[in-house]
């Protein structure tokens, strides 16, 4: 298969993630959008690794999975904490700072 299809898929996934991050309000969807962006980068790295015939791209993709997992842990903990304190996972409800409250 030509690598171009993979590049296309990776850029498509990254764009979906970015658009989702900008347009959606639910914290879980925001989190999944960021994961989608990072996963598309993994696909890109693996493809480059195959194209260049160099293993280090795949190794970087593996390392990335570890970083993504660490981020997921903190993100989910934050969502649970925010839901407990305000009974909502809608980011539109968090406007205290923008309105200058203390």
């Amino acid at each position, binding site marked *: 298969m030509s690598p171009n299809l993979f590049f296309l898929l990776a850029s498509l996934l990254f764009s979906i993630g970015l658009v989702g991050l900008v347009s959606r309000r639910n914290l879980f969807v925001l989190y999944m959008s960021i994961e989608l962006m990072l996963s598309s980068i993994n696909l890109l790295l693996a493809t480059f690794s195959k194209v260049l015939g160099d293993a280090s791209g795949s190794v970087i993709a593996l390392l990335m999975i570890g970083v993504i997992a660490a981020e997921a842990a903190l993100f989910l903990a934050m969502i649970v904490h925010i839901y407990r304190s305000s009974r909502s996972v809608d980011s539109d409800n*968090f406007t205290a700072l923008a309105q200058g409250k203390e």
Partner: protein
Amino acid sequence: MIEQLILTLPMAIIVLGAFVLLLISHSKRFNLDRLNLIAVFFLILSSCVQFIIFKSNDIEFLFSDVFGETFILDTFSRIFDLMFTIGAILTLLINNDYFKSRRYFNGEYFALILFSVFGMMMLSHAHELVTAFIALEIASLSVYALVGYHKNNRVSSEAMLKYMVLGSMTGAFFMLGTALIYGAVGSTNLSDIALYTANHNIDEMSLLMVGASFISITIMFKIGAVPFHSWVIDVYHGAPYPITMFMASTFKIAIFAIALRLYIVNFGEVNVFWSELLQAITILTLIGGSWMAISQTLVKRMLAGSSIVHSGYLLIGISSLGLGSEMAGPAVMFYLIAYFISAVGSFGILSFIASQSKTQMRFEDFKGFANRRPYMALMMSIFMLSLAGFPSTIGFLGKFYIFTSAIESGQILLAGLGILTAFISVYYYFKLIAMMYFYESDEQKKKLPIDISTILIFAMGLVVVWGGMGTTLIPFIPGADGFIDIAQETINSLK
């Protein structure tokens, strides 16, 4: 082998300290004071080791037979390591009262600070893009958790939410840039990339340029340059005072460490490509930051806005660096040191004062402050003068070198705008000084408590003044020329 292990020690001690703190944080035997002392002990131990190995000047890679060329040990990274550890020590010691006045601080807090310092040290040592990304994530994830540390406060959680969503997004951009550069060069090592940029024409490197631009988005976001600034004021406001101090001084310096390394070593040949973009961002940052700093009523938000302006001054220096100014590298480095000292002082004194109040400090709260606490008011004025760039403080010399380098590289507009925003900054810094000195106060004059926080604040005040006009009269305390020598040496070690 043993020699390499000794060179690793500063970082290893920090991680070890973080794990020790995690282990003992739930023991009943250790109260906050003791945990704080243990954290400071590990940091001081690390900085002592750094002093001892400081003079081994030859550039070396850490465990090069195992890690390849991923970790570099040069004077540049050593200076930054020292600044990170000193910043963390000052954050922990000056805020000792603040920790005790709030109930939500516990042992993990100190462990998180140490992890974040470890991430920053890794960042300054990183000689490879993936290492830099992982280091950046270690530092950022700890800081995200620290920002939301006031668990029961909605504002703090909200600040964490904002910072984390936006920070993770820009982290993805960093990795995207790395992947694209890997696709173009076939390696993520900085020396390979520098070789690649030196041997190719700028028209052949479009993939590399796109990747590098993505990386610069992340860097611009983390330093709070203006199109990517929307989080700065809110996050600085929502975070507890010690964290704000840590982020504004230490974390920002860490981002500049990797930015300078990438910009000088990695993309040194192709800097011209970004110069116009960088100038536009600089102009926006200077004007937007001043605008935001003027319109605030909380002192913390004003300082957050002003920290955006200081990023703008540093960007002037980086932009002149790209246009080939000889002085720009040391100027940026000197400004980083100057900003670091002044920011640590001003945020430190603010959180020292705030530890006695339950609400956020407004400008009005400082009315008659000079009557109540004359010495603290004096110190606050010194830090404000230094941030505003008054002569005889270190902030003035920093701005002087930055503007000189801008004129040397022919960017008259940027230099002029920088001087203009420096004038504007006098308004919001002097508003605080005027509040302190021009109003009477009915309250009793409080006695100056002599403890570690006040002593350190006074020491920082002395360094600010001595760094502005001092010479090498006092041994071990660098005056103005000492700091310039340090800056020069640091930048020279990069080439």
